[in-house]
């Protein structure tokens, strides 16, 4: 255990940037500079911690002790403890924040959006919450940041201030604050039952010791956690997510593909692996229930997605589906399943953000929101649509995009699960495959429409309306995320072959090593 202030400093970057953003509201260039500076500073601080974590250590940072007694460490502490799994999420969020900040600048300025100061202010606070969730050392700390994340994203969702946006924001808040209530119940229940809420490798022992006598309460408590992590948008509690797509596209991109929803699945994996522990989950039979919820969501969300014509809504349903891959991975309770789930957090983040950024770029460049209007747009915006295709391939799990790797591990996990636990689990292997097939069904038509269909909306002269690529501020981030979606894949291959791997490891943010360590922590190898 290495004691260090780095986690605190990293968290404070956006927290300090937020008031500065407010202060320089009248000078947009300086204001945006603070966002970028905070993003870069935070990312480099988090990157610094990789070294410690890779050596098998954790970075420990206690802010203060509370008055509550803790059965493990004297008093319950509020603070950060950076382990491999938390670092994966933190790296993903902080790296993507920088890219989305650039994109936001391009997007907000091209559309001349109102209330930009409020937008960047809330954005900084949202990332503050997300990183806090990633790095927190126990459930209480996690709850605090989780709520900050909920509250700070509300102004972003309702940003447009149209009646639609306001009702969307209201729904968002209603769902997620209700979720917070359940989460709090779960947190305090765990504290009361065990006297601790620290994330422990392999699960809290005092909790598994309760299994024979407190079966009901442990199950109820788990469902409270599950409801608490409604941010993971599992069905039937998903409908806030498509509604929240009224937000500006960069918000949908970062918050609804990365920070908010990932905080939800991150929480579920945390609770499954570090609070309950794999053995307890299995003995309570919760793995199967969770897997059923996830499997159901995967299939149904994909069927919904097929019916959507609005591109962002289709992506939203795709997100719901992909999040359930992660939940399923955790629910399989096997090494490969958890490995796949943990990998899918950053990988899905990169791929989905590419898709959202493309959707935003199309909207800014051409004003089109519906897929049916996008005929031939691939010829007008080749870079954007190529990036989109990369993301779409990744979603379907087709090499050479990285989505293939996490899905491969998930499938392995399902197979492993059927061998270790019960043969029924093999069903989830087929669920995974069918869901991937359905992914193809709704992503390929978009690519087809964009590249191979003749544009319909021609003028009387027969000329196509002039559509150009989006501004460079938007184009570069989406290209980078698309390239990284492929780099992660190449890094995996090169690791196996053993060439260039040190350089590729740095480029791929050491995610494979971190996942290896994290899985080792969960199963205590």
């Amino acid at each position: 255990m290495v004691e260090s202030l780095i986690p605190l400093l990293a968290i404070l970057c956006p927290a300090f940037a937020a008031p500065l953003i407010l202060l320089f509201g009248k000078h947009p260039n300086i204001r945006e500079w603070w966002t970028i500076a905070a993003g870069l500073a935070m990312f480099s601080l988090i990157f610094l911690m990789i070294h410690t974590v890779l050596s098998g250590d954790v970075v420990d940072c206690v802010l203060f002790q509370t008055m509550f007694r803790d059965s493990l460490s004297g008093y319950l502490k509020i603070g950060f403890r950076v382990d491999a799994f938390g670092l994966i999420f933190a790296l993903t969020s902080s790296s993507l924040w920088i890219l989305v900040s650039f994109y936001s600048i391009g997007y907000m300025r091209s559309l001349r959006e109102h209330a930009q100061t409020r937008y960047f202010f809330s954005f900084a606070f949202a990332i503050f919450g997300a990183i806090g969730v990633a790095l927190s050392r126990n459930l209480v700390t996690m709850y605090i940041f989780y709520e900050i994340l909920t509250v700070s994203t509300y102004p972003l969702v309702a940003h447009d201030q149209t009646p639609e946006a306001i009702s969307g924001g209201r729904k968002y808040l209603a769902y997620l604050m209700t979720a917070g209530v359940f989460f709090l119940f779960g947190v305090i229940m765990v504290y009361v039952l065990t006297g601790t809420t620290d994330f422990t490798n392999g699960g809290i022992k005092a909790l598994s010791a309760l299994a024979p006598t407190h079966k009901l309460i442990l199950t109820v408590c788990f469902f409270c956690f599950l409801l608490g992590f409604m941010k993971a948008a599992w069905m039937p509690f998903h409908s806030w997510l498509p509604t929240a797509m009224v937000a500006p596209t960069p918000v949908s991109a970062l918050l609804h593909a990365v920070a908010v929803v990932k905080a939800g699945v991150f929480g579920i994996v945390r609770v499954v692996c570090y609070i309950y522990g794999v053995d307890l989950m299995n003995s309570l039979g919760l793995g199967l229930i969770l897997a059923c919820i996830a499997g159901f969501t995967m299939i149904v969300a994909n069927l919904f997605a097929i019916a959507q014509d609005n591109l962002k809504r289709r992506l939203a349903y795709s997100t719901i589906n992909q999040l359930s891959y992660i939940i399923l991975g955790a629910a399989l309770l096997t090494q490969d399943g958890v490995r796949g789930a943990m990998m899918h957090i950053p990988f899905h983040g990169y791929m989905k953000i590419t898709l959202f950024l493309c959707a935003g770029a199309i909207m800014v460049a051409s004003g089109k929101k519906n897929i049916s209007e996008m005929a031939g747009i691939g010829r007008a915006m080749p870079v954007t649509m190529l990036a989109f295709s990369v993301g779409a391939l990744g979603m379907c799990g087709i090499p050479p995009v990285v989505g293939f790797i996490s899905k491969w591990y998930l499938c392995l996990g399902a197979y492993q699960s059927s061998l270790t636990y019960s043969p029924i689990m093999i069903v989830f292997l087929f669920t995974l495959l069918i869901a991937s097939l359905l992914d193809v069904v709704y992503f390929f038509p978009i690519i087809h429409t964009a590249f191979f269909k003749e544009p319909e909306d021609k003028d009387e002269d027969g000329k196509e309306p002039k559509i150009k690529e989006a501004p460079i501020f938007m184009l570069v981030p989406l290209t980078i995320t698309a390239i990284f979606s492929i780099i992660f894949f190449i890094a995996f291959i090169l690791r196996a072959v053993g060439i260039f791997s040190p350089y590729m490891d740095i480029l791929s943010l050491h995610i494979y090593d971190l996942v290896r360590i994290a899985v080792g922590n969960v199963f205590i190898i």
Partner: protein
Amino acid sequence: MVVEHFPVLVVAVSLISAYTILVAGWLNRKSSCFISIATITFQLILALFILHHVLTWGTIHYPLGGWAPPWGIEYVVDALNAYVLVILLFASLLVAIYSWRSIQSELPAKKTVSFYVLFQLLVTGLCGITVTGDMFNLYVFLEISSLAAYALIAAAGGRALKASYNYVIMGSIGACFYLLGVGFLYAVTGSLNMADLMSLLPPLYGNRVVQAAFVFFVIGMSIKMALFPLHLWQPDAYTYAPSAVSAYIAATMSHISVYALIRVIFSVFTLDFVKAYIGMDLAICWVAAIGIIAGSVLAIAQNNFKRMLAYSSVSQIGYIVLGMGLAPATTWGFFGAVAHILNHTIMKGCLFLVAGAFIYKAGLRDIREFRGLGKRMPYTSAVFTIAALSMIGVPPTVGFATKLFLMVATLETYNYAFAGVLLLNSLLELVYFGRLIERIYLLHEEPESESELNGGTRDEKRIPYSMLIPMFIFAALCIIAGIFWLTNLATPLIEPLTDLCTGVMP
């Protein structure tokens, strides 16, 4: 030590100051506010010394006039009093600063002097209730503060008169109940001193008169603190009183009544009495739980901002009483109740000051008129948002601290129903504060006249700094105190409170 004289000084200085204001205000109307502020600042400094002394050296006993305790009046200050006294005087100070300009705009100038005389008398009464260790003395101060409050509420005239009259009737009934309780106890024990009663009462716990006295105390103080369903006087009083007064009464006076009840239950009857009657603690909890939900539901139905806050107070007082009801089972309940006295003072004080600012600016009372206030009054709206988030209980604000303590208390004792009530209430609060935040920030203002459409500005008063700064301090405290409760810095307070809770003689 000199600090041991401070409890009586706090009351005496305040009382003298009240009459000084009367005389000085005759000569110069403007001086009244400054004398009041200066006095309260002085009192606050005394209170801080007292708190420090109590936490380091232990309880202060001060026999008035040198008469030994069971016969003479005794002032007793332990950790709980000292803590409440500091909160009371701090809130008084902020409200006094705020009132200067707020009162100017809401009351005719000739009433300024009498306002501050009454205000200072109110402070005197509340301080007296806090420091005294004598049952009858407590009643005297209760009446001083109540009479001052009746007059202050009626100050605005018009509908406030009716509200005040209601309060007079209800408040007098409450005070009578209290007095009856004191009389009953005196009849069976022959003593009025709290510590003395505490030692005399245990053999008499089975006595009907003692039991009746207990019920009288509880009901009497419940009226005073507006616990549901005895809250009927309170919404009108808060709505029609001048803003500074409603802020003051909501933030301090109701909590002092709560304090008095805590004192009577824990220091006179002790928990042994409560535990002797199985189910009594649970009954208190249920009354509080119903009050929490009913207050919030009624608040949702209101369109007048101050009235909404009044009902929200009914609900929040329920939190404190719920904590008290859980006290026999777990110390976290009692601690949650005591912590919420501070927390609710901060939150409600802040919100009522904001309500006053809205009225000062444009006479806005109805929440339907709040559209687009975020642009017109950015600072006040920001303060409101922070206070509203605290009410909802978003971490790391004070509301979250209370919620955390009480949740631990309810779940430790496996009272899932009360945990559910607490959680449900935070959602209800989200409903009625969320809709306000939505109105203030998100709904666009409807242009009212041609001149505005043409970019003209209406001539609105700026909120003066003397009103803004108290609001800022409260808002900052919402977060600072919230973090303070999470840390272990409050531990020195816990131990004496736990002693009090378990009935150890101070």
